[in-house]
């Protein structure tokens, strides 16, 4: 190695410090993102566990509901099967009863026909017996009349005396009387026989009438039995229909239950698979956590080494500057140029005090001005810019505390970096390249909300213009245009610092 200019080496070492600082920032950001991503992943796994539990509960409830309804459907099905059997049995009994009732009715209708025919014959016999009796009585009356006349003729003959006192021969009259007497006797016998026949005919007619009457009663009762049997059969048929429809519907219900059970089985499989996947996701997340812990430990170790390196480099640079440029300019009133690891701020500022006061205070407290301390560079940048503004606008207000109306309507406090020439200026030292697009959008929105809060503060008169000073112009393609376009829509000016 040849001789190297101490100042050049100091610059090289400062650049190394800058690279290390950039590395530190990026590493911190990467770990922060990894932390967030890990936490987010674990939260998602937790959510998935809860979701899986909910799905599983639902499956259990569905299974219970299916089994409950299956039990109901089975009880119903048994009842319907029994109902169908009983209704068919009753229909058979009703059919037999109807046949029996119809046979009974038919029997007694036939008997009634027989009885009616018998009665008709009995009536005819009575009619004939009455005619015979009337004829016999008429003949008897005629025979008795003839007898009377024959007896009268006979007496006249017996009592007759002619002029000579002689009697007549009365034998013919006596014969007439005997014939008339025989005729009366025969007629009387005929009347007697006719009377007997009439009595017998009437008795038979009464028997036939009694038979007809009982047969009519039997037919009436049998007819009622047939009507009842028809009604019973009709009801039994309707019972069969109802029981069969009940059975068919119960079977349909069972089919639906079976389909539901099949779907619950599928649902259980899906829930099981989901649980397995969630468990695997949890395992992978744990694995991720393990890797993350390793990365975090390595990053912590690397950061420790970087800090030690930086201290060593500070010493080395200090020595080199002692060799070549003993005075950094700190301690004087103004700051004309300052470089920190990863940052370079160049302002033309005469008589500034805030930034130099800060550096002096650091030297006083720590023995040196170390702008790599957390937040130091940002604070220094704010002070330097505020000094610059105050140099050019003595009426400017810096670090102005104002009331701010929050989103929920409550009042909070805010501190304006600078209020100069009617413009509210907010200073941002963020590296806009390190954000993802989503994060960048959120950040830009947060910055805008902050400065708009100052703009609408009740402590600020009117509505001043606003601008944001970004220390670093982003290097990623399109970022600068994106930021400018974003704030253009919000009416906020953008001032870029160094490249």
């Amino acid at each position, binding site marked *: 190695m040849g001789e*190297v200019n101490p100042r050049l080496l100091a610059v*090289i*070492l400062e650049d190394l410090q800058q*690279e290390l600082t*950039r*590395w530190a920032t*990026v590493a911190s*950001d*990467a*770990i922060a*993102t*990894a932390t967030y*991503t890990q936490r987010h*992943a674990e939260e*998602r796994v937790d959510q*998935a566990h809860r979701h*899986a539990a909910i*799905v599983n509960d*639902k*499956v259990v409830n*569905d299974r219970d509901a299916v089994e409950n*309804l299956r039990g*109901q459907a089975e009880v*119903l099905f048994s009842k319907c099967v029994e*109902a169908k059997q*009983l209704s068919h049995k*009753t229909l058979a009994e009703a059919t037999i009863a109807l046949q*029996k009732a119809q046979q009974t*009715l038919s029997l*007694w209708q036939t008997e009634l026909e027989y009885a009616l025919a018998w009665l008709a014959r009995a009536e005819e016999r009575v009619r004939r017996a009455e005619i015979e009796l009337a004829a016999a009585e008429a003949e008897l009356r005629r025979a008795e009349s003839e007898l009377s006349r024959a007896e009268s003729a006979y007496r006249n003959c017996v009592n007759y005396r002619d002029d000579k006192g002689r009697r007549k021969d009365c034998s013919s009259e006596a014969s007439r009387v005997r014939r008339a007497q025989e005729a009366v006797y025969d007629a009387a016998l005929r009347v007697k026989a006719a009377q007997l026949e009439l009595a017998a005919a009437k008795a038979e007619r009464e028997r036939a009438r*009694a*038979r007809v009457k009982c047969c009519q009663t039997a037919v009436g*009762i*049998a007819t009622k039995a047939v009507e*009842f049997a028809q009604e*019973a*059969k009709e*009801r*039994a048929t309707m*019972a069969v229909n109802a029981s069969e429809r*009940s059975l068919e519907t*119960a079977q349909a*219900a069972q089919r*639906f239950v079976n389909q*539901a059970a099949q*779907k619950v089985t599928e*649902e259980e499989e899906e*829930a099981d*698979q989901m649980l397995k996947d969630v468990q695997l*996701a949890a395992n*992978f*997340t744990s*694995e*991720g956590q393990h890797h993350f812990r*390793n*990365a975090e430990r390595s*990053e912590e170790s*690397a950061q420790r*080494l970087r800090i030690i390196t930086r201290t060593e480099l500070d010493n080395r640079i200090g020595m080199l500057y002692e060799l070549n440029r003993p005075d950094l300019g700190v301690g004087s009133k103004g700051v004309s140029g300052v470089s920190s690891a990863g940052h370079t701020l160049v302002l033309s500022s005469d008589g500034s005090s805030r930034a130099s006061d800060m550096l002096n205070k650091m030297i006083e407290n720590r023995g040196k001005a170390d702008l790599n301390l957390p937040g130091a560079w940002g604070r220094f940048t704010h002070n330097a810019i505020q000094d610059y503004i105050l140099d050019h606008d003595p009426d400017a207000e810096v670090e102005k505390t104002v009331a701010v109306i929050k989103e929920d309507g409550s009042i909070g406090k805010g501190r304006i970096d600078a209020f100069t020439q009617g413009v509210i200026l907010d200073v941002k030292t963020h590296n806009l390249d390190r954000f*993802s697009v989503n994060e960048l959008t959120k950040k830009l929105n947060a910055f805008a909300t902050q400065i708009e809060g100052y703009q609408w503060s009740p402590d600020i008169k009117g509505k001043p213009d606003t601008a944001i000073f970004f220390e670093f112009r982003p290097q990623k393609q399109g970022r600068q245009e994106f930021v400018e376009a974003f704030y253009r829509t919000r009416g906020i000016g953008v001032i870029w610092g160094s490249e």
Partner: protein
Amino acid sequence: MEDEIWYMKQQSRVLQEFRREIQGFWDDEAAREMNVRYLNPHEDDDTQMTTGLDGQQNALQEAQVKLTSASEHALRAEKLSVEVLEQLELAEQDVSIAYQFYEQYRDYHSHARSFLPEIEKLIAEANSVCRGVAKE
């Protein structure tokens, strides 16, 4: 996270390239000591960190695949649950209708059965009305 890891690797690469670039300018004892004691271990830690982050990212991507799959299973399970409820609703409707038919059956059946003894009685009565009454 992929962007951050990529950016991290880029920054690491830039740092290490820078270290290599300045080797020609800064090669004294202090440089060697600082490399051996701090910067080389720092590089090792850096490599382990990026390896860890890669491992984490891969694991979390696998986890995400499983979560996506779990979510799909959950969707299917929820869809099936809805279908189960629909089937059960249809089954409940049929159970209700079947009970209505069953009640009709019970009504008709009890009526039908109530006639049977009466019919038997009427048939017996019809057959006994003419008992003792003479026939021709």
